[in-house]
């Protein structure tokens, strides 16, 4: 049956976290999961027109496997406005602890206004010393950071420095923490894994020989617009 949609859909924005074990599911898996969450949540979903109508979900800056996030954004299209508190409650009842909505609202801006993303990288390594933090900082501050990066036309040596707004390392207990803000522009998106890659190469950290003792985690913490005000 083909549904006729005379009404333009109403966009509902969900800010949610995706952490713990859920860092290991891909963006595609997330989309598939969310498709079922919104159905279970019984939201008044808007369906695409045509032969095979489907709800439409849009996400900002897809998260890659191995990165957790406190600030994911998803736009759902509805046929009518419902109170955001109810939408939030129903969505959360249909997700597990590791993924929950923190804010649900009718947005004033498009998802594409999101231009920069902040990350906290934690290195759990044997010698988490101030000297190492220093070394990491000097690498991150260099004029150029060349790294082999996937591009549309295969792997190429790319200078990722212009895609890094800021980055600095510090010692925190047995760990080294790196705070950085990276480009989230679809045309110049920088995956934080490349920062790890550069540090592996330049500082000789995180060898693959002992995956139980040398490891890292990445948490996306904040989203910004072009002028560095918070995205919402």
């Amino acid at each position, binding site marked *: *049956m083909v549904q006729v949609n005379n009404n333009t859909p109403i966009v509902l924005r969900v800010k949610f976290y995706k952490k*713990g*074990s*859920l860092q*290991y*599911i*891909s963006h*595609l*898996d*997330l989309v*598939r*999961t969310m*498709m*079922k*969450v*919104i*159905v*279970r949540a019984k939201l008044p979903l808007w*369906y695409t027109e045509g032969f*095979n*109508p*489907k709800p439409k979900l849009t996400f900002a800056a897809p998260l890659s*496997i*191995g990165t957790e996030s406190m600030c994911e954004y998803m736009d759902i299209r509805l046929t009518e406005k419902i109170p955001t508190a109810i939408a939030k409650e129903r969505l959360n009842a*249909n*997700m*597990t*602890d*590791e993924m929950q909505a923190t804010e649900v609202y009718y947005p004033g801006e498009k998802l594409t206004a999101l231009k920069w993303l902040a990350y906290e990288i934690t290195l759990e390594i044997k010698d988490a010393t101030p000297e190492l933090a220093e070394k990491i900082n000097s690498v991150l501050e260099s004029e150029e950071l060349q790294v082999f990066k996937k591009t549309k036309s295969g792997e190429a040596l790319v200078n990722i420095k212009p895609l890094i707004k800021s980055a600095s390392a510090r010692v925190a207990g047995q760990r080294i923490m790196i705070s950085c803000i990276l480009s989230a522009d679809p045309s110049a998106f920088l995956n934080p894994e490349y920062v790890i890659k550069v540090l592996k190469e330049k500082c000789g950290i995180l060898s*693959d020989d002992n*995956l*139980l003792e*040398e*490891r890292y*985690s990445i948490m996306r913490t904040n989203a910004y617009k072009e002028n560095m005000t918070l995205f919402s």
Partner: protein
Amino acid sequence: MQKNDNISGILKSVSKPGRYIGGEYNSIIKNKADIKCRFAFAFPDTYEIGMSNLGVRILYDVLNKESDIWCERVYAPWPDMIEKMEQYAIPLSSVESGDPVRDFDLIGFSLQYELCYTTALRMLKLSGIPMWSKDRCESDPIIIAGGPCVYNAEPVAEFFDLINVGEGEEVLVEISRLYIEMKEDGSYSREAFLHKAASTIEGVYVPAFYDVSYNDDGTIKEYRPIFDDIPTKIKKRIISDLDKVSYPEKLVMPYIETVHDRIVLEVYRGCIRGCRFCQAGMVYRPIREKSPETLCKAAKCLYENTGYDEISLISLSISDYSKLRELTDGLLEWTDDAHVSLSLPSLRLDSFSEELMEKVTSVRTGGLTFAPEAGTQRLRDVINKNVTEDDLKRTIGIAFRGGKNNVKLYFMSGLPTERDEDIVGIADTAKTVVDCYFALPKTERPKGGVSVTISVACFIPKPFTPFQWEKQDSLEELERKQKLLKESITDRRIRYTYHDAKVSRLEGVLARGDRKLAKAIALAVDEGSIFDAWDEYFDYERWVSVLERSGIDTDFYTTRGYAEDETLPWDIIDAGVTKAYLLRERKKAYAAETTPSCAEHCNGCGANKLGGKNVWCK
């Protein structure tokens, strides 16, 4: 610290880490303090395949409905993960709690196909549990097997402590209850528990309690029970009333893509058809139906708890369901509005109608698949696959007019009495489909031309079928026939795929084997065999070598054929259908005489003695 934190480095280094994380919506977490029996349901294949298995979904739900039993899932890690687990001494653990499976009370393996045996045994090794039943000690879990392979599990019988023959919904709960009871009253020991289970629970087979002796020619002399109070033959268990048995209301929702990621409704068990090569059609008898009311209720409930947009109606031959119209009408009352599609995976050529095609989306949007199984009418009569070329033409006509131009046909080669003309007949049948397309007026033909794929499997004489005594074709003969068929296909619109004859040879040995094979299987596992059903891991040369070194003559189990008066390895099991019936059917096969379906009249197969409600047997 969260469950997977300590192995995060490993999870980041393996393919598809989402397989190992658990935490799925609807997965069941219980408080260990309330639990008296921890049951690990082990599926010896990948997460993606195991998550799609209906049996696992049903039994996970049934066991977890018991408040003091916690059933968790375990899947086989992919070899890249196994390598890491061995390197870092990480034992196999369950998906839910992440606890090592060796700490569980009971571990139930679902044996769905023979080629999973090595994977199952490798899982035991990864758990640090001895592979052989006789080597396990009091503190080891009880290792259970179930699933379709147990109709002849003799080749792997000595690796399991207990085998559940037949449908598991009741038996597994009874076994767990007995375990709890004996642990609580202090009477538990492995031996006492297994003995009590074997003597008091119907459908329980404890292989160690049966001595097998052999004749000089290697055939089986007899099975002798070592206790007086255990059955001489293990009668398969069935669920009597499928409307009363519990069916999951929720499904564990995988985060990653699985093979069948949808709602599956089991409409009935058994099959009325009696195809003579088909084991499922025989061992799942008697036919027991669910009512449309039960099914519609289950579907709505599952939809609300999962959010899936597809409902698949499964059973061996769905169009034989006596209330199919009530069922599809009942579902269509709400599924269209909810944007949920229906799919029917098993359609028969003779019952395919325009009405059915309109109701099911998979038929509207996907390709069409049919299984004539044999290339000539004579051979189709031999195997009792009662479809004719006219059925095929009529069906294909409906499909083409419905806009389908992609047809897949399933066949078997190596069938009893098969001649070269039957092989050539497969190519002819495919050509008939192409011709049907061009026989249509141009305006009625679906766009994009026509494409026909023929997929040919090698016949394996399966236990509990009328063909159980038959010879399996030799490797050379199967490969010769594959070549003959290839040469007989002249139309480039026909695509031909076939099963590796070497894989079928091993499947034949494992499906028809006896306990003498155990040594070879253990050796194969020790030397690295795993995931035999996966092309990239199947190593035929290794199998030939371990079988040879274990003194096994594979011809004995395959090309030899079994004598009608021989004690068969699977004679220890009573699957319902009698030998007398199977022999009658075998004789009719040789006379190319067909047998009508159970809907027309009862053929006295013997399965009715098992009872059951809403059965076709009178």
